[in-house]
């Protein structure tokens, strides 16, 4: 059984210093089982300037079992799957401690963005590139940040319009945009795949 009062407290705690950390956790539904996390790309990395969205699901045993997290925003990083967004991070697995919180876990993920561990890769292709052709890695990561992690300056209505013009029904466009958090590229991808 999830300790909801603790989750509630965690959310409050997190929103207090949102300015300082830039880390945001918001519930997707009312039941606090499904949440969304936002982390800013660390300065001085190819992820700088991007806003990365993570999908968080709390298991029944939370906080005694680790939360399940994966990137929704596409990232080019050795320890994050470029396909599924799965994260390879010890504290989300066997090194989880109940004393950690969603915020500290997200901070660790942010730290992972700054300090990849290519020897223990989640995405072999990316890791290979990181080690063998670092320049290409940097530019690809930067390009991905540009393309996927930067919310376009367009307003919501403009995005809707743009996608409707591409031939998708408006209601579907709106709901998809909502799901992906307003990212038009993500929405397009989702619409194309559905």
């Amino acid at each position: 059984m999830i300790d909801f009062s603790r989750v509630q407290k965690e959310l409050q705690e997190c929103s207090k210093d949102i300015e300082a950390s830039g880390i945001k956790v918001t519930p997707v539904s009312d039941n606090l089982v499904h949440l969304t996390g936002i982390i800013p790309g660390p300065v001085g990395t190819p992820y700088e300037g991007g806003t990365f969205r993570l999908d968080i699901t709390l298991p029944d045993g939370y906080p005694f079992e680790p939360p399940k997290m994966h990137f929704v925003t596409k990232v080019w990083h050795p320890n994050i799957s470029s396909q599924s967004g799965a994260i390879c991070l010890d504290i989300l697995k066997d090194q989880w401690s109940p004393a950690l919180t969603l915020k500290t876990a997200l901070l660790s993920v942010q730290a992972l963005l700054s300090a990849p561990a290519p020897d223990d890769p989640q995405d072999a292709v990316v890791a290979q590139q990181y080690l063998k052709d670092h320049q290409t890695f940097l530019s690809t990561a930067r390009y991905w940040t540009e393309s996927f992690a930067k919310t376009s300056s367009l307003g919501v209505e403009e995005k809707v319009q743009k996608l409707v013009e591409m031939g998708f029904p408006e209601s579907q466009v709106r709901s998809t945009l909502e799901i992906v958090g307003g990212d038009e590229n993500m929405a397009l991808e989702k619409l194309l795949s559905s």
Partner: protein
Amino acid sequence: MEDSFSGDEDYYYSDRDSLDGLENDEADLQWVPPKGSSTKVITRESLLAAQKEDLRRVMELLSLREHHARTLLIHYRWDVEKLLAVLVENGKESLFNEAGVTVIDDADPMLPLSSTVMCDICMEEVAGDKATKMDCGHCFCNDCWTEHFIVKINEGQSKRIRCMAHKCNAICDEAVVRNLVSKKHPNLAEKFERFLLESFIEDNKMVKWCPSTPHCGNAIRVEEVEVCEVECACGAQFCFSCLSEAHSPCSCSMWDLWAKKCRDESETVNWITVHTKPCPKCHKPVEKNGGCNLVSCICGQAFCWLCGGATGRDHTWSRIAGHSCGRYKEDKAKKTERAKRELYRYMHYHNRYKAHTDSFKLESKLKETVLEKVSISEERESRLRDFSWVTNGLYRLFRSRRVLSYSYPFAFYMFGEELFKDEMTDEEREIKQHLFEDQQQQLEANVEKLSKFLEEPFDQYPDDKVMEIRMQVINLSVITDTLCKKMYECIENDLLGCLQLGTHNIARYQSKGIERASELSTCWTSVNTTTDKRQRSDADTSGVAYLIKDVLTPCNAVGGTLEHDRPSGSRSSDDSGCSSQKRVRKEDCLSGRFDLNLPAEVIDRN
């Protein structure tokens, strides 16, 4: 109960080098230190004691509390010597850190300092008496601890439940775990106990569960890790390295390959490719049973045996109607030839392996008739009184049969191409094969002779003829034993000794048969000790082995209550009960079955 744990003076060692107990000579009782390993059976009762003994050593040496000692031992896989080596090399602090042991001498860890405590897990203020501080100094509320323990136990991590604080490597005090979990979840607390107890077996390279099915509940402990074969108190004989049946002089990997080969159908498939052709119409494999090369399948289709192509039904001297074969295809012929050779080779070895295994089974029946003959002879008015030569001879026959049958799979791999293709030149292989086969042949001939003499109806013979048979049996017993020993030596020194690649360790040849694990003496009361010692010494004349019996079944198949996993300190009452139960079983195995591993005089006595 630590007191009743006896030391080494209780173990009897076999005289491995004496030929065997042909006569009731004193060689059997001579105390000779074992060259190889000795093994113990660890029973349900003795598991705790065996574990306690190791714990006690570590606790005394390092002046530690029990749970710390256990944590250390689990970390070092119950290898006390290794633990001590690390201690000497790296010092106490590093030893403790690595295993997650924190020892704080001051402040009672059970009592938090202030009246209320902020629990960092549930983020609530709780009263001081509702929180627990671990040895590492981290304090959380009892509810959170309990929840944490439950999750970890369910994850199967009972042996190493770490503190909840991030990056704290300390292992939680088992008493706290036991105490908190049992309040909320008594069943889980039992599971936790069992995990701790079984760790002694599962994390211990010196101890293994007996592989018998249904599981007898025993485990076996060896003194040294080396290749050996043991017999559990339940009668199961097995190879301690690979846990399959005792298979020497085959090495474990040879036996593994052989068992697989016999099981799977690859040879059948080989046979089919060599001896049949698929019908071009219905594709069933068709075997040619003679005659000309125009073959017809049961489906009615006629085809050419030479090329497998469909034909008409007419056949003349020069051609099959509607068909003419293509050219000779050398490649295919070669392949078929090779497969055929391989198959014949396998069949040769398998047939002999099988023949000896079958003889062994039949001769096991023989023992009943022979024992009957012995008792008839004993009733007779005759100057011959001692018939131990019969049972000894019989025992020697079984022993040699086993060696013979496993020598065939050994030879199959030793002189085949699968394992040692690049290790020997063809000439070397040939020389070695001749050497080995000579020995095998000699052994075989003598075993057959021995078998023949034992089958004689000696109970109906006059004394002088019986004496003659007696002489033959005694002689042949000595000869086969020597030949077996020679064969093992030859394998070790001449055949495997000079190979470079791969290690093929083979359990030593033991004249007296597979070592029978002796029971680890434990919780018996003094009343039982004397009888028990006698029995143990009997069993031990065939080798020293210790057995962990009835511990618990490895997984969770423990029927009923788990009386024996109770926390330390609270057992004593049922000791006498369990030992009596054990004696019943033991007598059972001495009288009910003919025990191949006991010298004849023991069997006679029963």
